[in-house]
């Protein structure tokens, strides 16, 4: 129209360009987080209160009820610390991914984002990216604090394999978050359902108590929960000294789970966004 050739860039360049935008989202959210100084400080204080709480609860728990890892008995604090760390990652990650677009909609910036040459998936991922980086960092500090203050015994050789398991588990959370995001975009008030979903996932994961305490049929079903599989692998690695031996099994289960969750989540999110554009209700909340 303007007489200037505007050649479409190659797909690889588009993907690279989209990834290059992610740090901008991280910076935006970091600056926003830092602008709420009191919230930032109280969050970190809360972590240390949580550690103390777990310590005293752990004193009441009969450790013989807990599973062994690599033949080694563990304390409740060791057992729960890994579970809670991963559980919190799932809960916050799921909530953040699923409500990222909704939050932009609520504060009025969604339309300004969508008129930029940025893919909706990038906006969705970008809006959750900071938390996907910040929460594992926060989780690591939590685990280090627990280990340092209460003298927990994590296997040194198991830390990296546990981190790998956490990394391959992230796409599962992202995929589930995208599905939830589609629901939130369509039904507006979906936060309650996300909370229930996250709680069910955590309940059937063995994060807070061994799955053997569940009714047998439920324990069988719960063993298919990707969170439970990730959790067991991480505990085996970090507490039982199983090291890298847990990684192949975890990869075999979590990579396909993540792929399926991501594909389904992407389809659901695209459909929800297309519906909003068709109805012209994207700006309504």
């Amino acid at each position, binding site marked *: 129209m303007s007489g200037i050739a505007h050649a479409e860039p190659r797909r690889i360049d588009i993907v690279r360009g989209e990834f290059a935008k992610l740090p901008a*989202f991280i910076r935006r959210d970091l600056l926003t987080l830092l602008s709420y100084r009191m919230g930032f400080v109280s969050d970190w204080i809360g972590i240390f209160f949580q550690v103390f709480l777990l310590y005293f609860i752990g004193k009441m728990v009969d450790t013989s009820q807990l599973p062994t890892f690599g033949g080694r008995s563990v304390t409740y604090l060791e057992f729960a610390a890994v579970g809670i760390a991963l559980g919190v990652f799932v809960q916050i990650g799921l909530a953040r991914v699923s409500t990222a677009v909704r939050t932009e909609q609520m504060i009025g910036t969604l339309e*300004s984002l969508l008129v930029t040459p940025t893919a909706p998936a990038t906006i969705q991922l970008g809006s959750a990216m900071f938390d996907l980086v910040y929460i594992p960092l926060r989780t690591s500090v939590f685990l280090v604090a627990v280990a340092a203050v209460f003298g927990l015994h994590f296997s040194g050789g198991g830390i990296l394999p546990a981190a790998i398991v956490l990394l391959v588990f992230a796409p599962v959370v992202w995929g589930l978050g995208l599905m939830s995001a589609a629901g939130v975009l369509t039904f507006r008030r979906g936060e309650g359902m996300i909370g229930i979903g996250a709680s069910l996932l955590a309940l059937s994961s063995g994060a807070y108590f061994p799955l053997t305490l569940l009714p047998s049929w439920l324990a069988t079903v719960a063993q298919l929960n990707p969170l439970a599989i990730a959790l067991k692998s991480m505990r085996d690695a970090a507490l039982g000294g199983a090291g890298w031996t847990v990684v192949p099994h975890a990869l075999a289960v979590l990579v396909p789970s993540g792929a399926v969750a991501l594909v389904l989540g992407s389809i659901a999110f695209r459909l929800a966004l297309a519906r909003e*554009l068709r109805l012209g209700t994207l700006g309504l909340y």
Partner: protein
Amino acid sequence: MTTSASTPSRARPAVGAAKATRRSADAAIPAVEVRNVTRRFGAKLALKGVSLRVHAGTIHALLGPNGAGKTTLLRILTALASPTDGEVEVLGSHPGGRMLKSRIGFIPSGDRSFYLRISGRENLAFFARLHGLGRRQALDEADRALASVGLADAARLRVASYSHGMQKRLSIARALVTTPEVLLVDEATHDLDPEGGRVVRELVSELASDGTAVLWTTQRIDEIRGFADRVTLLREGEVAFTGTVPELMAHAIPRRYLLRIRNGGPNGPELTERLQAALAERGTIAAHGGLDNYVLALADEAVLGDAIAALTATDVDVLTCHQERSEIEEAFLHLTRTVGT
């Protein structure tokens, strides 16, 4: 907000002049073309067969009362909504493509399109990065754009501390960051004071003079005189008028005038009765706001000169006479059929 933002002094960049020259070759081809677009929301038709064209380097005002369909049309042009029927082309492409989006600027009507907890500079740099600029370049462009709209002094303040006018200028700065070929503006001045509105119009005029095609929606009808090149008037989703501002004003049929009348004696009901008797079938006259002010409403076939002559024949002086509403307002009301409501 204590910082006073300096007066905008946007120097026209050389690249803009080159762009204007470049685009003059394409002047016959519209930058925005809307053909017979219909948009339905359930049972309600928000747009009914709307067509319009906006050329490079021109400002096209999209005028209409609330609910006329202005924002719906802008949302279609920015791919935030799709038309139920009809065709839309922006710079020769259907809205929504990545390449096209990088060539369009959008100024939304509300204030809530920025991150209030971070600075204006960081906001602009963020949106510039979404247009593909690197961090350093994004910050440089943000600084340049902020200076262009007179917000350099407020660059590092949180947007939450900006006034309405400053946020609106920040919106324009966001559009400037990418030097858009098409600028879509949704009621940019509706909540600004006259001076704030003037500043925003000036900035947009400069962009247009650099070659940008501007579609400017508004319901502040008087602002389009001397600003817009063409006007499309929407009424209940339909085009009620399209043409130039003088052509729009030609639709004005002023029938109501404000008169200031000097009388030797008191201006009581007796004087009003006397004036009305003199007017006879030419129209009606009524006191307006006390003192010497009256409203003259002419009958359909009456001539203003005859009416004034009849009034002065009663030994009063008609000191001033002007239209109650501007010609544009008269045309707007005439075309939207809301006179007297």
